[in-house]
């Protein structure tokens, strides 16, 4: 039989393919449904490319190992679901503070707590943003197809490397377990980015310099073992990495690690716009829910209703500008379907203010919102 170029690939498998294409060479994890295939595939594939897979004793240790490996200069990732994501928060905060590039995949299932392991949810949107304590910025990306799971994993590594920051790939069980026909991009089609290495000799190296780096506020990162000895701590530190209680230095450093993300919002925030130009009703949906929204918008258009879809691909930082554009067109309503009690609807509502009514559709029990449910909300709104 003649084979075509396409493959049948699962979302979770696509994450591993994307990660390895992006240069992943270290995975530490503690398998959990519905992310387990990511660990399985990483275990199978990493040894074949000279990488390492390690199953740790728990999620806390996994995240610590990922931080350590990344500081040794190796692109690193872990994958989990809600209960494990909770445990990873402490060291995720450490990665934010230590400015350690890494990728954390969260394939969301129904919570709270152990919830419904095999059923999809989008209940960790706010946890991704604020799960770790203290003022910090975070980058989170949200794929809505298998192919996009591949591409956004590559993107997650690129952002992690470029901005010296952890990046969350916020999946849901539907996309994690969905298998689709995909043609993956070739190596030549991909842009792979690497962290900036210091150009100064070890004795002059400041791992947390205020004013160095290709991207302002992102200092170059040496790898442990290359002769650059430096200190990494979760304590607030100065440019040399050693703890300080000096308020002036502390304020500057905390602002720097926040602003390196917030001031680059334009570059980081990606959306898909579908029939938005003349839309009288705009659906804002992400992840698997966006698939239903897309179908609902198509069906609405077939019935002569001017509906459109704004799909945040970047969940955090919030796609403020794209939403402001929607607001400027003064649609009759914005509809936000989510597999949670209403999380991303909060910043959407904040942007819309009193100008545009925001309608939410929420499902909690592990079922994907159906196109018909969104379509009837669209019809009601026009």
């Amino acid at each position: 039989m003649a084979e075509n170029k396409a493959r049948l690939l699962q979302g979770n498998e696509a994450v591993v393919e994307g990660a390895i294409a992006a240069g992943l060479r270290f995975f530490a994890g503690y398998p959990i449904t519905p992310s387990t295939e990511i660990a399985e595939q990483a275990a199978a594939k990493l040894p074949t490319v000279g990488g390492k897979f390690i199953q740790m004793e728990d999620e806390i240790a996994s995240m610590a190992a990922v931080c350590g490996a990344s500081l040794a200069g190796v692109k690193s990732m872990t994958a989990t679901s809600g209960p494990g994501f909770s445990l990873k928060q402490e060291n995720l905060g450490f990665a934010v503070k230590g400015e350690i590039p890494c990728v954390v995949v969260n394939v969301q299932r129904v919570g709270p707590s152990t919830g419904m392991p095999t059923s999809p949810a989008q209940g960790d949107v706010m946890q991704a943003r604020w799960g770790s304590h203290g003022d910090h910025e975070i980058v989170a990306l949200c794929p809505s197809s298998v192919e996009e799971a591949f591409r956004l994993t590559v993107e997650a590594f690129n952002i992690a490397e470029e901005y010296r920051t952890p990046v969350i790939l916020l999946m849901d069980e539907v996309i994690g377990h969905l298998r689709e026909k995909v043609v993956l991009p070739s190596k030549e089609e991909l842009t792979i980015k690497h962290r900036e290495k210091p150009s100064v000799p070890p004795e002059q190296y400041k791992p947390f310099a205020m004013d160095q780096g290709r991207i302002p506020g992102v200092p170059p990162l040496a790898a442990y073992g290359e002769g650059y000895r430096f200190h990494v701590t979760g304590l607030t530190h100065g440019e040399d990495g050693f703890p300080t209680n000096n308020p002036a230095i502390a304020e500057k450093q905390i602002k720097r690690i926040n602003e390196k993300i917030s001031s680059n919002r334009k570059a980081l925030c990606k959306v898909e716009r579908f029939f938005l130009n003349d839309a009288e009703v705009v659906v804002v949906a992400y992840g698997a829910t966006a698939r239903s929204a897309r179908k609902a918008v198509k069906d609405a258009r077939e019935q002569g209703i001017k509906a459109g879809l704004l799909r945040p691909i970047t969940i955090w930082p919030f796609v403020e500008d794209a939403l402001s554009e929607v607001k400027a067109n003064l649609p009759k309503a914005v509809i936000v379907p989510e597999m949670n009690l209403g999380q991303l609807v909060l910043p959407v509502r904040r942007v819309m203010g009193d100008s545009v009514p925001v309608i939410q559709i929420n499902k909690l029990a592990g079922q994907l919102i159906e196109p018909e449910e969104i379509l009837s909300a669209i019809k009601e709104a026009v």
Partner: protein
Amino acid sequence: MRVELRLAGAGGQGLITAGIILAEACAKYTDLNVAQTQSYGPESRGGASRADVIISSNEIDYPEVKAPDVLVVMTQEAADKYIPGVKDGGTVIVDTTYVKQLPEAQSKGFKVIEFPISGKARELGREIVANIVALGLLTEATGIVPNDAVMAGVLNRVPKGTEELNKQAFAAGVEAAKGL
């Protein structure tokens, strides 16, 4: 064209594997789009298990099955649960080894194919290939994906050393569909 297929039974019967094989054959050897999803409990054996496959000539937006055009049921529980949801005029393939009574089909004009799928697999040597017998039946009865494509898909996915048994199982399913 959008065809929705569902294979339902108990965990351990290999129905998710069968769904993956069908979807993979479709992806690799046809021009059609395909999406495969599944539903299962936290247990690895026992409990309800379901594989869904959507085959479409268009982009597949909503990736889940709502009303299957084709349903394979391999337990009584699956038959009771899923037969009423089959699309009008759809096809229901029933493993009579385990399904003893069909629920009221509410005069929807289903085409019902009854065959002792698991019994046939046992006869061939191991009940574990019941999923491949079912796949043979499904492939031949629906004609959406060519038989040799699905057979190639079977050989891609089954463990080494079991190829011959799986070939026989697939052929037995195809034969059964032809004879009905």
